């Protein structure tokens, strides 16, 4: 099985240290993957379909068509938004023959074709499914990490399309945290949205959603957060400071992407991962827990 990595826009262009951690982890576990080249934006499931659904389907189908040439390969992505778009486009074009025909009419102009059923998987799923093997590489268990796991919306829903984990009572990420030696801390609003998508149209509303989320974390005794989506990452990492200013809160929770926590547990140094580029600095926590000196 070969994996084609669909990187998307946000991780490479905004938080490349997450990409860095993923590449290190993949190399360590010997994952057979290569980058999927010639891609466009997935496109953003919370943005482009609202402007023009047809264009969203067409660009999404184009991205999927790039994999047609690689028989037997699975697309993997670190972004819940990309996974949702690619799976939903697959779904819509398989259900609606007329849409598929229309999209293929456009794709013909660039010599491409959507033939359907390209398997797509979130990296969180890939890791969970190989957890027993991956656990063998843990050399520095995440002792003292009290993690508020944030599943985010599109990692789980709509479950009929995403087909991964229980949308009401998800467990996979919590189990990964435990397997890495950390502790998953329950908190209020755990399954709520981070507030990111609606920021494009109503910042006040978005802030309210984010506040609820972070307040839940604050009341729980967690000392950091885990996310599996770059939109959740940037939003929860970037927003704490501005909310502290506006709302006089004192949020100070380092946000980690899943592969960053994995990499730390595998013994990679924060310095080599680029953890310093986080907005909410993780240095204090990492020093305290003996992950930095």
């Amino acid at each position, binding site marked *: 099985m070969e994996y084609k990595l669909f*990187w998307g*826009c*946000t991780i*490479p*262009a*905004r938080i*490349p*240290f997450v*990409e*860095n951690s993923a*590449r290190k982890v993949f190399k360590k576990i010997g994952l057979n993957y290569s*980058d999927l*080249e*010639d*891609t*466009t*934006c997935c*496109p*953003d*499931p*919370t*943005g*482009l*379909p*609202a*402007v*023009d*659904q*047809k*264009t969203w389907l*067409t*660009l999404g189908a*184009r991205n999927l068509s790039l994999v047609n040439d690689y028989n037997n390969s699975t697309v993997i992505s670190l972004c819940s938004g990309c996974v949702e778009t690619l799976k939903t486009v697959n779904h*819509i074009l398989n259900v609606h023959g007329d849409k598929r025909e229309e999209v293929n*009419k*456009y*794709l013909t*102009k*660039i010599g491409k074709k959507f033939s359907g059923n390209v398997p797509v998987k979130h990296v969180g799923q890939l890791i969970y499914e190989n957890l027993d093997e991956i656990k063998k590489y843990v050399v520095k268990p995440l002792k003292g990490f009290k993690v508020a796991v944030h599943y985010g*919306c*599109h990692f789980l*829903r*709509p*479950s009929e399309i995403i087909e991964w984990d229980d*949308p009401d009572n998800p467990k996979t990420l919590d189990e990964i945290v435990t397997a890495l030696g950390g502790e998953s801390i329950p908190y209020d609003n755990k399954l*709520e*949205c981070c*507030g990111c*998508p*609606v*920021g*494009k*149209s*109503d910042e006040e*509303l*978005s802030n*309210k*959603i984010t506040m609820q989320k972070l307040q839940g974390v604050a009341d729980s005794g967690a000392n950091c957060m885990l996310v599996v989506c770059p939109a959740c990452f940037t939003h929860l990492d970037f927003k704490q400071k501005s909310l502290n200013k506006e709302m006089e809160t004192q949020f100070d929770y380092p946000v980690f992407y899943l592969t960053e926590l994995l990499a730390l547990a595998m013994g990679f140094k924060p310095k080599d991962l*680029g953890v310093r*580029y986080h907005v909410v600095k993780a240095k204090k926590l990492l020093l305290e827990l003996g992950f930095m000196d």
Partner: protein
Amino acid sequence: MTLKIDFGFRKQFKTYKFSLNYCYQCGTCSGGCPVAKLTNGDYNPRKIIEACILGLKEKLTTLLEPNVWQCSTCQKCVEYCPQGVELTEIFDHVKNLCVEAGNYPQAYKAQGEAIREKGSAIPMSNAIIKRRERLGLPVMKTASHSEIQTLLRETGFIKKMESI
């Protein structure tokens, strides 16, 4: 004020988004919607679906009652609707019509422009290119400009972006 029924709109929605016809207005969607809760029911997904079924195009796309752009796309309504109504996809169709009517938040246009020009929602800045080098990350090979332009011309997206 009288509400105008747009029969073309109603027909279009009911035929394409067939799941709309299954809505029995139970309100499960609104009951679990985080935005409905935070706006004390001002925003209400059930009402959007109702207006689609009734063909109240003006109410939805001009008056923005309820304002479909307030949906956070969390997909809870889709998950819990007992009738399998594809709410968020239906909302996308409503939003597409809002865009045509010039009623949309600017951030959507900005993202659309970025995708039109570079194929990417977030083009690389020089600072990030340097940071990537420092981290030892490879240069990303993305889609060719001319290919994206051909495709976006074909779907009518370039024209749409120019006209809105």
